[in-house]
């Protein structure tokens, strides 16, 4: 996207269209590049100091092994071999994999449905609904998770009273069997609105004349939605799925917060990110924690790449 804006906003090329001007043009081009670098410098410094350098340092750490009793030594990729055979890490990956399978379709499904409905309505109610669906995203993840922790509580939450109305006993939302669903619920509540806004914005970008043409051709509302709108926003959908995929693989905040009320059902190594956190800050294994973080990074990269490759036609990236 950025590149396209740069090229279109380059009138210089139009000003020197002829071959003889090439020498001058390249000097201007050169000059422009220098200024480009100049304006890039503040960002580049921040980027190098706060992203590239720490990444490099973390990678360097991940090549060392430090144990409580034996001290630190350089071990090359031994940590990575250990990570990809570490049952705790693999279980965590499998768990976030399950979250991906369950959570991503639910979130995107809800977001898409809401966006399509809101796109066809044009009443004041639709504006209000749009805001309300988006609102959970405006609540910081920490606060949202804490709040849900209370809602799930058998004593403070509404479930106990609600179930009592029907003479039933409320299930425990924080037992080891149910905590998965409870987490899916929190994340869906929080993120669906955000994805809905992205999809909605993409829908608004479609030329209404197309709908008119479809109507003249005899398409009904369903057909317009599924055959016209959805295909036309497929690149936005791909982007939203990628967001959702990466976010889910890096799952951390919600389980980490719920862990304070359900430490039994959510062990310290529930997700790979939580495992890395526990290793570094609870068990003082900074080196291995860096390895886990990198290993997760590799997995996220592979997943995202495969997904983008599979959807390259739809996303418009090809």
């Amino acid at each position, binding site marked *: 996207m950025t590149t396209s804006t740069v090229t279109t906003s380059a009138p210089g090329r139009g000003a020197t269209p002829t071959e003889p001007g090439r020498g001058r043009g390249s000097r201007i081009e050169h000059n422009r590049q220098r200024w480009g670098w100049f304006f890039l410098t503040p960002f580049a410094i921040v980027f190098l100091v*706060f*992203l590239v350098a*720490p*990444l490099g*340092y*973390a990678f360097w*750490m991940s090549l060392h092994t430090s*144990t*409580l*009793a*034996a001290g630190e030594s350089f071990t090359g990729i031994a940590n990575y071999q250990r990570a990809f055979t570490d049952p705790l890490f693999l279980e965590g990956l499998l768990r976030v994999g399950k979250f991906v399978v369950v959570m991503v379709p639910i979130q995107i499904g809800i977001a898409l449905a809401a966006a399509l409905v809101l796109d066809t309505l044009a009443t004041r109610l639709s504006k209000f609904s749009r805001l309300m669906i988006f609102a959970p995203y405006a609540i910081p*993840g*920490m606060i949202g998770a804490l709040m849900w922790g*209370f809602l799930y*509580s*058998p*004593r*403070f939450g509404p479930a106990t009273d609600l179930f009592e109305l029907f003479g039933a006993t409320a299930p425990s939302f924080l*037992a*080891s069997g149910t905590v998965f669903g409870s987490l899916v619920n929190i994340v869906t509540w929080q993120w669906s609105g955000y994805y809905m806004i992205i999809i909605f914005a993409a829908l608004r970008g479609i030329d209404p004349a197309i709908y008119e043409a479809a109507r003249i051709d005899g398409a009904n509302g369903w057909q317009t939605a599924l055959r016209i709108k959805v295909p036309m926003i497929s690149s936005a959908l791909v982007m939203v799925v990628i967001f959702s995929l990466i976010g889910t693989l*890096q799952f*951390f*905040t919600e389980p*980490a*917060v719920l*862990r*304070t*009320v*359900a*430490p*039994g*059902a959510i*062990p*310290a190594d529930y997700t790979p*990110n*939580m495992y*890395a*956190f*526990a290793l*570094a*800050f*609870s*068990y*003082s294994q*900074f080196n291995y*924690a*860096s390895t886990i*973080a*990198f290993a997760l*990074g590799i997995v996220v990269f592979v997943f995202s790449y495969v997904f983008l490759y599979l959807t390259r036609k739809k996303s418009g990236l090809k």
Partner: protein
Amino acid sequence: MEGIRRSARRPMAVAASAVAVTALAACGGSDGGSGGSGSASGESCTNEIVNADAPQVSVWAWYPAFEQVVDNFNETNDDVQICWTNAGQGADEYTKFSTALEAGSGAPDVIMLEAEVLSTFTIRDGLVDLSEYGAGELEGEFTEGAWSDVTNGDAIYAVPVDGGPMGMLYREDIFAEYGVEVPTTWEEFATAAQALKDAGYEGYITNFPTNGNAFIHALMAQKGWEPFTYDAAAPTEIGIAVDTEPAQEVLSYWEGLVDEGLVSTDEAFTADYNTSLVDGTYAVYLAAAWGPGYLQGLSDADEEATWRAAPIPQWEGEEPTQINWGGSTFAVTSQADDPELAAQVAMGIFGTEEAWDIGIEEAALFPLWKPVLESDGFATREYEFFDGQQIQQDVFLEAASGYQGFTFAPFQTYVYDQQTQQLFAMVEGSVDSAGALAGFEKSLVDYATAQGFTVTE
């Protein structure tokens, strides 16, 4: 005591919502604030520096009402001043300290630590041996158990401050209402649990928290459980004997109570648990000496409640054994600019009766310092919460003097996490108590081996 209850807590993931790779690597000592600056500047102290010319010693501590203790110290000392920061309670503070040790800077000069984590930091060379600075002379001022918790051979790694000798706080009104005798042994305790239920009491005699950490350790230690043998002088060797007879007996006792629905299994230190403690859901709170202070700080209390303190139940036919849960110390960190001055502060903060007046009155601490511990004033102190009962004399003084000390692992956080997982599996019914202990032991042996220890089982 407000602080120590959190000992059982997991580090809150507040600042860590996005543990990116960068966060892991770049977390340096940015949190420390005053850390390491020792005598450099007082600008980040929470307290006012009284004597600006004197060198300063930075201190991390989370005691309630600690500011008054610091002010008292600073007003009465011309040659040194305390620069105090509250770096979080328990695990929160340890996380910061651990990170500072890894980073090589950012730790304070003096730090409040629970006795259970001392070896976690000595193995990382994080603490200074105080015997060089005259701490040995203090030995006579503390009970044997308290002293053994902070020492290892000749090395002294911390100065004891407050303790957590255990007793049983119970709802006299509930026991009276249902006509049940207050138990003095664990056997009677189980009978009383059944009797309360039979008589129509809708709550539970007590709660068995799977994340009880040090509390669960203490219950098992009462039968003679000694899970770890560890000597800081030989830091690469550790003995692990978790799955032993005392542990099996204690755990199967609780498993029985859980299976019969006589005790609840709520996670401790959550809002639910706090409310249950004071609203009559639990008839008994098996507590440390800081427990009364904790209870008083909770809201939603049942106003009709009549609390009394009694000694912790004992096992029938066995020598009465006293146990301890929590308690804290002051240690000098290896990053202290002037270890001698820091040691002087660590030994001096709670080394006066004025400081302890504040500690007992305001913070409800249980002193380990004998001049106060053994004073008549403390023994005969009447507690309004217990309608004037002299709880120290009745319960906790004896518990404190009978406590023999306990050896913790140099990776105690991991131990607690594993214990929680196994106990949770046990109360959910996926393993029995024997299986839980076997799994617990195996996980620790594997971990210690991977960490390079020579493990003897």
